[in-house]
C-alpha cells in the first residue's frame, strides 16, 4: 500500500471503532458514515489511487468525506460578543467552587466603563446593517451588582436603537437572588443560564450559602417564575461522582418541575476543596452515557441537552469565546481574553490582558495581543490524533489542554469523545448501534481510549485493523 501520511485530506478524516464496525467522520464538513472494515480499506485504496476499481458507493462516500467544507473555521474579525463581569464576588459558597468565591475581590464594576466599551463596539458594528451586539454577564454572581447590570442593558439598548443594531443579552447566574429581580431579567435578558445541580438533596449538598444551608428552594422558585417570561432558559448542572448515576433522574426532575429550554451538563473540575468534601469528577463513561440517555428524555419535553465541547458544531478552533476576539471586561476595568482570573493564565506564562477601559479615555485595546491569543492554542499535540479536534478544539485552553499538557487523553477528553461519537451515531439514525454502544462498557472504553483516530494511520496500524 502506498504511503498515506502525505495525504492531508486523510489527516482530517477519522475512523472510530464502534463495536465490530467503524464510523468514518470528517469534521471539516461534518460528514459521517457507519461502515465495515472492508469499506474502510476500500476508502483508503481509492483515496490513495483514484484509478482503483472500488464500488461507486465507496467513491461517493470518499467524495462526501473529502469535499471542501461548506462552513469555515471562525475568523478573528471583531468580537463575537462582549463578556462583562460586574463583580467577582459571590453570595454562595459551593463546595466545589473553582472561582475562588471565598477570597474574591468585592469590587463592583463602574457601569460607565462598560458604557464606554459598548460605545466602542457599537461604533464598529454600525457599519454592518442588522448586526447583533451581544453582551454576556458573568461573575462571580452578576446579580449581586444588579444596578450595574440594569444600567449597562439600558445604555446598550439606547445605543443600539440609535445605531440600528440588535442587542442580545445573556447572563450566567447562580439563581440565588431576590425574586423582585425576576421581572427585570425576564423582560430584558434574552438568555439566562442558572446553575442547579439536581433535586434538593443533590443541589443543597453542592451549592450552599456561607452558613452551609441549602439554596435549592429559592433557586427553584426563581426558575419557576422566570419560566413564565419569554426568555430562553438554560439549567446548568455540575455532575460529580455522587450524582453521575442520577443524571437521568435529574433530567426527569427538571423536565417535570420547570419550564426551560436547555439542559447543560458539565463535569465537576477537581479543586483543592473537592476531595475534602468527598467529591471527585464523575467517571467519564458514566457521564457520557448519562448525557446521551438524558437527551431522549429531554427531547420529549422540547429541551435540548448540551455539553460545550461535545456539540456537533464545526469545524471550529475553539469551543469557548476565547480566541474569537471576545473582550471580557473585568470589575477593575481591565480587558482580558478569558473570563478566568488573570493569574490562571500568567501561571502558564501567557498574558491574557488585552487592554483596559478608562473612565474618560474609553477602551484601549491592544489588538495585536488580542489577535495573538488564538496562536497560543493553535498547536495542540494531544488533539492532533483525536476525531474531536475540530469540534471540541481542546476544550478549555487553560484547564484542559494548556500549552505543554500531556499527550494522553484525560477524563474530559474521554467523555467528550464518547458523547460526540454517540451524537454522531444518533444523527446517522443507527439506533441499534447506538444502543449497543451505550450498553457495552468495553465498546465505550475502547473508543474513549483509542490513541489515534486518523484514517491516515489506520492502514499502517495493524492492531486497529484487526479489531
Amino acid at each position, binding site marked *: 500500500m502506498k504511503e498515506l501520511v502525505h495525504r492531508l485530506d486523510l489527516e482530517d478524516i477519522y475512523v472510530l471503532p464502534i463495536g465490530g464496525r467503524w464510523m468514518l467522520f470528517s469534521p471539516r464538513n461534518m460528514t459521517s458514515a457507519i461502515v465495515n472494515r472492508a469499506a474502510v480499506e476500500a476508502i483508503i485504496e481509492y483515496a490513495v489511487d483514484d484509478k482503483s476499481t472500488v464500488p461507486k458507493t465507496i467513491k461517493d462516500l470518499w467524495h462526501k468525506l473529502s469535499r471542501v467544507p461548506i462552513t469555515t473555521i471562525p475568523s478573528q474579525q471583531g468580537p463575537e460578543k462582549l463578556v462583562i463581569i460586574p463583580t467577582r464576588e459571590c453570595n454562595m459558597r459551593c463546595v466545589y467552587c473553582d472561582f475562588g468565591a471565598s477570597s474574591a475581590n468585592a469590587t463592583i464594576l463602574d*457601569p460607565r466603563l462598560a458604557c464606554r466599551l459598548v460605545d466602542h463596539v457599537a461604533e464598529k458594528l454600525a457599519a454592518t446593517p442588522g448586526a447583533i451586539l451581544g453582551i454576556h454577564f458573568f461573575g462571580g454572581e452578576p446579580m449581586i451588582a444588579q444596578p450595574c447590570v440594569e444600567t449597562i442593558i439600558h*445604555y446598550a*439598548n*439606547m445605543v443600539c436603537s440609535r445605531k440600528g443594531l440588535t442587542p442580545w443579552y445573556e447572563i450566567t447566574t447562580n439563581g440565588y437572588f431576590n425574586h423582585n429581580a425576576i421581572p427585570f431579567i425576564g423582560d430584558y435578558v434574552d438568555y439566562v443560564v442558572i446553575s442547579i445541580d439536581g433535586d434538593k438533596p443533590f443541589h443543597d449538598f453542592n451549592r450552599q450559602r456561607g452558613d452551609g444551608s441549602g439554596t435549592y428552594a429559592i433557586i427553584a422558585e426563581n426558575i419557576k417564575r422566570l419560566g413564565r417570561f419569554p426568555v430562553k432558559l438554560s439549567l446548568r448542572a455540575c455532575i460529580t461522582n455522587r450524582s453521575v448515576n442520577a443524571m437521568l433522574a435529574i433530567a426527569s426532575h427538571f423536565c417535570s418541575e420547570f419550564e426551560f429550554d436547555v439542559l447543560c451538563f458539565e463535569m465537576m473540575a477537581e479543586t483543592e476543596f473537592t476531595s475534602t468534601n468527598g467529591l471527585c469528577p464523575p467517571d467519564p463513561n458514566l457521564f457520557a452515557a448519562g448525557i446521551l440517555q438524558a437527551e431522549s428524555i429531554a427531547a420529549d419535553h422540547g429541551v435540548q441537552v448540551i455539553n460545550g465541547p461535545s456539540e456537533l458544531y464545526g469545524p471550529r478552533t475553539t469551543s469557548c469565546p476565547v480566541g474569537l476576539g471576545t473582550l471580557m471586561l473585568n470589575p477593575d476595568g481591565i480587558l482580558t481574553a478569558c473570563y478566568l482570573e488573570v493569574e490562571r493564565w500568567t501561571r502558564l506564562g501567557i498574558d491574557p490582558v488585552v487592554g483596559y477601559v478608562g473612565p474618560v479615555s474609553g477602551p484601549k485595546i491592544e489588538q495585536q495581543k488580542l489577535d495573538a491569543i488564538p496562536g497560543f492554542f493553535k498547536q495542540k499535540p494531544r488533539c492532533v490524533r483525536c476525531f474531536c479536534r475540530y469540534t471540541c478544539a481542546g476544550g478549555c485552553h487553560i484547564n484542559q489542554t494548556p500549552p505543554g499538557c500531556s499527550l494522553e487523553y484525560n477524563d474530559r477528553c474521554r467523555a467528550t469523545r464518547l458523547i460526540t461519537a454517540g451524537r454522531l451515531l444518533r444523527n446517522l439514525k443507527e439506533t441499534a448501534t447506538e444502543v449497543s454502544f451505550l450498553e457495552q462498557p468495553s465498546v465505550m472504553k475502547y473508543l474513549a481510549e483509542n490513541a489515534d483516530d486518523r484514517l491516515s494511520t489506520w492502514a499502517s496500524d495493524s492492531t486497529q485493523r484487526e479489531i
Partner: protein
Amino acid sequence: MRPSHHVSWLVEKQGVTLFTSDKGMWGSIPYPHAGLWALIANGSYTKVLATELMSILMTISKEEAEREIEDTLETWIKNELIHET
C-alpha cells in the same frame, strides 16, 4: 412610585409601549426615559438609583439628572401613568 393600575406596558429593545385600560395604546417611551420607567415598573425605583441611571444614560451631572427625573415624573403623574406609593 408604581405604575397606575390601569396601565400595562410592553418592553421592547428600543423602549416601552404603554397601554391604558380606557384608551388602549397610550404611546411609547423611548430611551433614555425607558430606563426610568423600568425602575418604576419593576419596583426598584429609588431616587439614588434613578439619578445614577439617568446621569449615565443622558451623560449629564447628577443635579441635572435629578431635575430631569422630577420633570418626567411630574408629567407621568399628571397623565396618571404612575402614582406615588
